[in-house]
């Protein structure tokens, strides 16, 4: 039950202002990204601080798409991020389910180890990772990124999935098993539909993390063919100048998949799906 409390108009106005201020603050960099991406090259420096350029153009987008390796970066990033998200979520879901539902020896040690992996700064392990990947002969290949991203995201994703499974009452599985399901059927028919928000959230989280990762991509990838987006953006920086317009245009385009992905999964992120399962 929600109780309507009537607030003074001054207070709600103040609140509105605060929210507006925060929104402007948070969205301004993105606005600036868009603004520069439509600014013609010759105006970037002359009208640098104007909120909107005197003439806008979509030329930067055209150049980025047709005259650079942008589409390759885009395709690579999409492949790496989707694969990482899918593989990680699958493994994390299985691990999270096991952590949530079963007692087994070594569980505490396993949890401790998973936590341990999250405690080191990534910089510390770049060199060993490079050596390992090189020894595997995977340098300059997209699978190396998928492998590394998956490995680094699994601990967090597992804990995330475990918390979603923990939120689903164990009684539901028991009830399904009493109703004639095997454990696997109970998982598929009862637990899985209720875990969709969790799967969506995990997918989204991992996708974005992989999409914007630069450190490993920079270290492990050299050739243009296998470059992902964040690294590809650096190709707009040449020895003597930076092509701001095209770089920003590429940045705007890079936002698109993330946005689409979140629009797609946001209905699964809506909580409250399990309400009504138990108690009164």
């Amino acid at each position: 039950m929600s109780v309507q409390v009537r607030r003074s108009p001054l207070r709600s106005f103040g609140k509105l202002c605060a929210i507006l201020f925060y929104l402007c603050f948070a969205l301004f960099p993105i606005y600036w990204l868009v603004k520069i991406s439509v600014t013609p090259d010759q105006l970037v420096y002359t009208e640098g601080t104007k909120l909107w350029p005197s003439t806008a153009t979509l030329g930067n987008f055209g150049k980025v798409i047709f005259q650079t390796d942008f589409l390759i970066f885009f395709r690579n990033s999409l492949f790496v991020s989707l694969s990482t998200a899918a593989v990680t979520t699958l493994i994390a879901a299985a691990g999270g389910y096991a952590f949530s539902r079963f007692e087994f020896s070594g569980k505490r040690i396993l949890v401790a180890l998973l936590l341990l992996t999250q405690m080191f700064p990534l910089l510390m392990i770049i060199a060993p990772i490079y050596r390992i990947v090189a020894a595997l002969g995977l340098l300059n290949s997209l699978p190396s990124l998928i492998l590394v991203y998956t490995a680094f995201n699994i601990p967090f994703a597992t804990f995330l999935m475990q918390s979603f499974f923990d939120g689903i009452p164990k009684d539901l599985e028991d009830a399904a098993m009493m109703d004639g399901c095997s454990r696997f059927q109970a998982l598929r028919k009862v637990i899985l539909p209720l875990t969709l928000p969790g799967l969506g959230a995990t997918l989204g989280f991992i996708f974005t993390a992989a999409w914007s990762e630069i450190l490993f991509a920079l270290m492990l990838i050299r050739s243009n063919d296998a470059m992902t987006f964040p690294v590809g953006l650096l190709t707009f920086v040449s020895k003597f100048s930076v092509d701001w317009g095209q770089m920003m245009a590429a940045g705007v385009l890079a936002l698109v998949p993330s946005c689409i992905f979140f629009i797609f999964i946001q209905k699964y992120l809506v909580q409250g799906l399990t309400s009504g399962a138990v108690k009164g």
Partner: protein
Amino acid sequence: MARLELRDIGKSYGTMEVLRDINLSVADGEFIVLVGPSGCGKSTLLRMIAGLEPITHGELLIDGRRMNDAAPRDRDIAMVFQSYALYPHMDVARNMGFSMEIRGARAEERRSKVAAAAKTLGLDVLTERLPKALSGGQRQRVAMGRAIVRDPQAFLFDEPLSNLDAALRVEMRLEIARLHHRLGATMVYVTHDQVEALTLADRIVVMNGGIVQQVGTPLELYDTPANRFVAQFIGSPTMNVLPASREGGDVRLSNGALISLEGLEGPVAELGIRPEHLDLADPDNATFTGSADVVEHLGSDTNIYAQIDGIGPLMVRQHGHVALRAGDRLGIVVQPERVHAFDATGARINS
């Protein structure tokens, strides 16, 4: 319908033993209530019968067949959970028909069975709702409906009414009793509420600390409790227990009063007297004298919490209205044929 037989059933988690030496045979169509304080192992025992909890010791037989290692789905038993455990993403009809869906029953057969069960439970207008749009009592009914549609050999209930408010609990209790009469199915029901146990059961199993204390009909437990625990657990208000010692064929209480009991065997440590088996009397020739501490007027009954000289607190229940007020002097006599004697271990020692 099914006979259940539990032979020397035990349960341990590692070195911790939670259930020991459970022997019980449940006749076809019998209503058995497992009752005891929380943590006594009654729910664990029920889950072992259901197959949700492995049996570490002993044998479980359903209709003479050993079922220790059978999966829940192969035992043909339905269970109603304390939390109801309705599937939140399915509407009422699908919740109720889920077991048939799993077994691959035809849609029209499923629909007619669900409709019939929904009708008897008064759920027919709610079949398209999701569980979250139902009240607590309605969810309870759906949980029962789900069990009924199963048409199982036996029903298990795990504290099904403990999440309902008092009025609804009485109503649903009646409904469960009616259901048992109508279906004539074997039912095992777990509760910590002795009123539910006494009103529903053909036989009650009183448990404490993982051990069965006594098995009997409600009246057997009330009239001849096997030990002090059962005596105090069954019956409301709780039985008074007074320290006592044996003197020849009689029993001496700490205030000096002597009570003669029949069929005593061995030394007496305590006497148990139910509040309703004490009567008010003239203080001059009463067994106990003292003053009223608190008097509760319930209309049909009067509860008197008395402070007895040389003994301490004692509770008396009198039928009807008694004009007594806190602080009044009073005398109390005992109905000797209804007194229970216990030895130092708490076991009953009079016939």
